[in-house]
């Protein structure tokens, strides 16, 4: 009895000392995954010529390259690294294999659908070179390693993936996903790269009762992301309804909605992040701006101690529901900085 009290007290003290996020995002499964991703990345590097290798690997401490990502298309925003359109087909496949290793199957699928959407946009826009699947860039910060921190960047129009891996730890924050067109036909199938996000969000807002909606719905228009690309290091005061005021079922729906971003990464990172979000659910907020009728253009935000997610339909370029910007950040650990920054 006494032993269990001592053990519980010690754990509680240790927990209090280390803080609520200290156990997050660390697991042997993650270490195994990092090893596998590093091996795939090294295969990609081996497929390149010397001049290409020099262009794709940056120093891990290169802050300019770390922050060189955007929602804008190439030509307007200058990216660095290797352009997919400049790679031979086997090299291109090797680059995509790195993403497939780092992401979950559904995360990888989402990325491919965003890229294909840009190819559709390129055709609709008269074949301009700044859009399309050739205009995505891949780069590494640091050498791929199973133990040392390194980073994979993959981005272009409406996509900015920043994957930091450090042995048994990993994060996708900060990353940008977007879509234009947000719905298109490909080989006879309707594709909605960010469709599950808005479907789940409408289901959640519909589940709120009147008093809850009063808290969740912001009484003003939202024209864009508040903490989009270029807003590193900034954080806003949370608003909306707090997780504490949601029912158990609604909390599950909120976590399921967030999983559309946290689940882009491979299973081990996604699970660790979701466990962390579950621990912080009472302190996680959900905010909404715009109509609540399914199919309308609405903005929403999820904000907790270790996550901020925004989804913002864009008014420019026609129908707002067909042009979406989203952002995923970790206010406590963007770029995995707490694992390597001194």
């Amino acid at each position, binding site marked *: 009895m006494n032993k269990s009290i001592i053990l519980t007290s010690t754990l509680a003290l240790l927990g209090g000392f280390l803080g609520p996020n200290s156990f997050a995002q660390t697991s042997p499964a993650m270490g195994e995954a990092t090893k596998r991703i590093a091996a795939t990345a090294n295969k990609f590097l081996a497929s390149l010529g010397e001049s290409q290798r020099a262009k794709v690997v940056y120093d891990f401490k290169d802050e300019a390259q770390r922050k060189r990502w955007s929602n804008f298309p190439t030509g*307007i925003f200058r990216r660095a690294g290797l352009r997919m359109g400049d790679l031979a087909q086997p090299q291109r496949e090797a680059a995509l294999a790195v993403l497939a290793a780092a992401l979950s199957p559904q995360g990888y699928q989402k990325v491919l659908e965003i890229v294909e959407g840009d190819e559709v946009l390129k055709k609709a826009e008269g074949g301009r070179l700044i859009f399309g699947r050739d205009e995505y860039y891949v780069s590494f910060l640091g050498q791929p390693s199973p133990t040392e921190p390194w980073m994979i960047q993959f981005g272009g129009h409406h996509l900015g993936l920043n994957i930091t891996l450090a042995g048994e730890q990993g994060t996708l924050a900060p990353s940008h996903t977007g879509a234009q067109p947000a719905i298109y036909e490909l080989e006879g199938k309707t594709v909605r790269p960010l469709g599950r996000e808005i479907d789940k969000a409408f289901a959640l807002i519909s589940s709120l009762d009147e008093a809850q909606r009063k808290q969740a719905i912001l009484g*003003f228009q939202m*024209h*864009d992301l*508040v903490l989009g690309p270029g807003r590193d290091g900034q954080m806003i*005061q949370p608003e909306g309804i707090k997780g504490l005021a949601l029912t158990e079922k609604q909390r599950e729906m909120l976590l399921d909605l967030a999983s559309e971003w946290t689940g882009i990464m491979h299973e081990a990172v996604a699970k660790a992040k979701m466990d962390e979000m579950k621990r912080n659910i009472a302190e996680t907020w959900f905010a909404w701006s715009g109509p609540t009728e399914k199919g309308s253009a609405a903005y929403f935000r999820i904000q907790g101690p270790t996550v901020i997610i925004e989804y913002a339909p864009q008014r420019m370029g026609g129908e707002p529901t067909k042009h979406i910007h989203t952002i995923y950040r970790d206010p406590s650990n963007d770029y995995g900085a707490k694992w390597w920054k001194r």
Partner: protein
Amino acid sequence: METLTVIRSRLGLLLALVALPSSALAHRLDEYLQATLVAIDPGGFLLQINLTPGVAVADQVLALIDRDHDGVITTNEATAYAELLKRDLIVRLDQRTVELKFTGSNFPDPTELRTGLGIIQMEFSVKRGALAAGPHKLTVENRHLPALSVYLLNAARPESASVQIAGQKRNENQSGGEIAFEFHPPPNPSIPVGMVTSLPAFLVVLFAGLRQAKKKWKAY
């Protein structure tokens, strides 16, 4: 004369829209996005404003910045535009107007601004004297180019534990809003920490001493 100017201006806007490259359709068009983040800390306030003119209004905005139309934004022109913007910002703390100080800016190249993708960054600060402990209200109103603009207004999460945001209100288009916050300064650091921590021990010794003295007094 004024009507002619308006017609010319509208015709110019129409021509600009017609002449847009198709790629521009993917980006901000006829709006000037003004996104303001308000940071409150014990020493003052900071307004960080990101300004993104859409492709169809970029020339109108640029005309206010690049005054000599030479395609270069000089330091003087940047400062003059900051002053122009400052005049359109009304900031009040507890109903009293406070004066903003222009503290920094970053202007992209005019050619980039004309794509509808360039972002002008502006920073204004307010240094103020001692703030009384308790609740306060900071109101921000942005009257800069209202016919062209859409707005975002947000309080930054305070970095200091002595400032807590109690609530935020905005008007529908976020051109104005009110941030309610509480300020609770830390205990006066002029009192030495040693004195504060040793005070209970001192009181115990004093109390014991008094009891002892009382017993002795009774014995007499």
